[in-house]
């Protein structure tokens, strides 16, 4: 069911169940985020997407909310650039800059909010990890939960079981691809890919013998998870297209069926 809300004075349409961030972005209103990615559930850890929400239903009650997690409701009035919003974003970016002074993304965002240099104490051995948790969440959603956050508070970090090479990792690079600051590094040479202290052999095309951009572990995992024919993941030939179409069709039919059941 669609309804209307106001963002920065602009009337926008929203649907039941949508979050403020999605609606704002659709309306072309920018809201900065670091821990958000469409592929995973919203998390609310970077606190950059804070917006000021006024609820007319609650006698004009006003509060700062994270846009990525705040569900839309009829007649909400939202300010994405108020003074209080900026105070939070400025401080958050200042803090992140002290943590990761070398991360380009942070430098750029911070300067947008008037922070050229952090006013806080810099970390002794800074890296580029801002602990947004995207890598962990994408690994949980799309792969094998091979990595996790470890410790708590200021000692929190992204880690692997007992700090060693993660046994469940399939080398899919999903973590590296979603990392907003480029902290997660990997190497690829010939048919070998290195990430998280492990080496993965790349799948080769059965017909041409050339390395494919997918590891053997990943192929096995995907074959199991997506009920695809393993041969699809070991060739790059056009012959596979027909089979892919069939598989996707089956998934689509299943999805539709599932949705109908939910509607009932």
């Amino acid at each position: 069911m669609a309804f209307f809300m106001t963002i920065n004075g602009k009337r926008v349409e929203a649907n039941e169940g949508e979050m403020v961030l999605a609606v704002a972005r659709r309306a072309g209103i920018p809201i900065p985020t670091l821990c958000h990615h469409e592929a995973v559930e919203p998390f609310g850890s970077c606190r950059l997407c804070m917006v000021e929400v006024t609820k007319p239903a609650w006698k004009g009650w006003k509060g700062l909310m994270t846009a990525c997690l705040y569900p839309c409701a009829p007649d909400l009035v939202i300010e994405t650039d108020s003074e209080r919003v900026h105070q939070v974003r400025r401080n958050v970016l200042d803090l992140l800059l002290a943590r990761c002074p070398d991360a380009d993304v942070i430098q750029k965002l911070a300067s947008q909010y008037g922070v050229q240099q952090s006013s806080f104490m810099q970390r002794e051995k800074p890296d580029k990890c801002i602990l947004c948790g995207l890598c962990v969440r994408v690994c949980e959603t799309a792969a094998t939960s091979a990595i996790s956050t470890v410790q708590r508070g200021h000692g929190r970090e992204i880690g692997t079981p007992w700090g060693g090479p993660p046994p469940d990792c399939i080398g899919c690079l999903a973590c590296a691809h979603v990392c907003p600051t480029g902290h997660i590094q990997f190497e690829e040479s010939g048919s070998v890919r290195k990430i998280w202290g492990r080496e993965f052999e790349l799948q080769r095309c059965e017909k041409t013998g050339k390395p494919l951009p997918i590891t053997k572990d990943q192929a096995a995992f995907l074959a199991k998870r997506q009920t695809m024919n393993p041969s699809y993941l070991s060739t790059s030939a056009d012959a596979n297209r027909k089979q892919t179409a069939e598989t996707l069709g089956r998934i689509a039919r299943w999805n539709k069926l599932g949705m109908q059941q939910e509607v009932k």
Partner: protein
Amino acid sequence: MDTHLRYDSVEAFRSHVASLFESPEAKKRRVLVCCGTGCMAGGAKQVVEAMHEQLQAIDPAKKAELNLVMKRTGCHGFCEKGPLVVLMPQGLFYKNVKPKDVEAIVQESILGDGVIERLLYVEPSTGKPVHKYGDIEFYAKQTRVAMRNIGLIDPANLDDYLLRGGYAALVKALTTMTPEDVMKEVADSKLRGRGGGGFDAGRKWRSCKSAPGDERFLICNGDEGDPGAFMDRSIMEGDPHGVLEGMILGGFALECKQGYIYVRQEYPLAVENLQRALRDARARGLLGDNILGSGFSFDIEVARGGGAFVCGESSALMRSVEGKVGEPRAKYVHATDKGLWDKPTVLNNVETWVCVPRIIEHGSAWFTAMGTERSKGTKAFALTGRVKNTGLVEVEMGTSLRDIIFGAGGGMLSDGPRGKFKAVQTGGPSGGCLPEDMLDLAVDFDTLTKAGSMMGSGGMIVMDHSTCMVDVARYFLSFLVDESCGKCVPCREGLFQMMHIVSRICEGKGTLEDLDRIEDLATAVELGSLCALGKSGPNPVRSTLRYFRHEYEAHILEKKCPAGVCKALITYGIDHDKCDGCGACLRACASSAISGTIKKGETFQIDLLQCDRCGACETVCKRGAISAS
């Protein structure tokens, strides 16, 4: 206790309780030995053993005549004076009892009518010994609702609880009330959550019940993590059935089937007593399927925490019960709609649940007769710090800080200018420090919040002039930095940086700009953090800056710590007129910073370069010749 007994109906329950009141058990003279965690640490176990031995040795005929029974009770809340032995019905109260005192107690006070003067509690205000439990000001100034059974019953004995009117509220609800009536009674009592937030319990229950879905959960939050606060532990240890009865009533009102009690890892005795209570209640038909033959079923499970402060936050607690990492999540969708396993859930803390049976039993009007306009009933505080009586104090809402600290608390611990009251910290690490001119504040949820502190779970730390407020702020910040889960940036990074700035001020390296920086950052952390831990994290700094700004300025501008606490800013000196050359300081100094000859009439020198400001010399000097400045 009869283990085969099971009440199939309300009538069976009533007739058994009636027979209990008629039984010799009810008329026995009781020797109550406190076996709370505090007294156990003080040697209560040995006292119990000695008492058992002594009672065994009494001539059987005499014993039958005396009709004696010894009970191991929960915490009396006066741990500082433990182990405690109370003789009932005369109410004789003995403190600091050692196993060697037991024989005298049995011979003089149990077999005879004598009183052992040296074991009596001496009232600090009058200097006179007090004989009776109820006459001790620490207890006389209290109104016990949540803690009414603790110390008087054996928590391992269900019959003891029944003899105190236990499960009468449940029977009342099952026989004369509908779930809606129970709901209304709790709503009318205006009971507010005792865990910190002070949210209206009736409203919470109502919104959970009206949430879509048939399956609902109840949770009792026993993850009491504030340093120094232990009222919930005492309740779980000392009156476990009270908690269960409250939850069963909640289950009845909300028409739900399952409840969980989340107990922090550090409370093994609470877990043990709760588990036993659950077993006993189930065996008697007071819990589980078809309670008292009424057709209503409800069960409770104990879930244990893993030792994280943040798991006391409701959403983190629910993740922990689910077996996931205990991290908070946004509460834009309330737990009453999507809580444990995304089902509607009511979470209240131990002290809140234990109030429910009392409200149902006595009616909401009885409860609302106590307290202030918007905070009804009583609140238990864990009074600690520089007061004479430390322990658990339950008073009516609206009692002034002065009445708590100088009434039940017995006043300040030390005399002299340094022993004078300076501040009271309420609400645990996320609370704030209130100065002397706030002493007449009538304590309730709203007044404390307005004053820049909070009720929290009821921690209350009294400080005198030997406490440095900047150091206090630094301490609480370091606690929160350790305990932050680290999920969101403002709490993880912000509190850490704030602690760094405050530490710098403690070292005399701060600037006035730092204070502005702290204020700006504090606002951002309050507004920007994900959960209440971060949102209230800046409170200790905020409130000390608000009321004790001059101390911060002294550290920054004069490079002085007025309380003589911050090591970088103090120097120790010897008053040569007072020093008698005893040499105690010389022996106490671990860094060999003191030199001189031990001889009457001689005096000593402190080498300030060697001195590491540990203060050992000051502590050992009997003549008070050494002081920090």
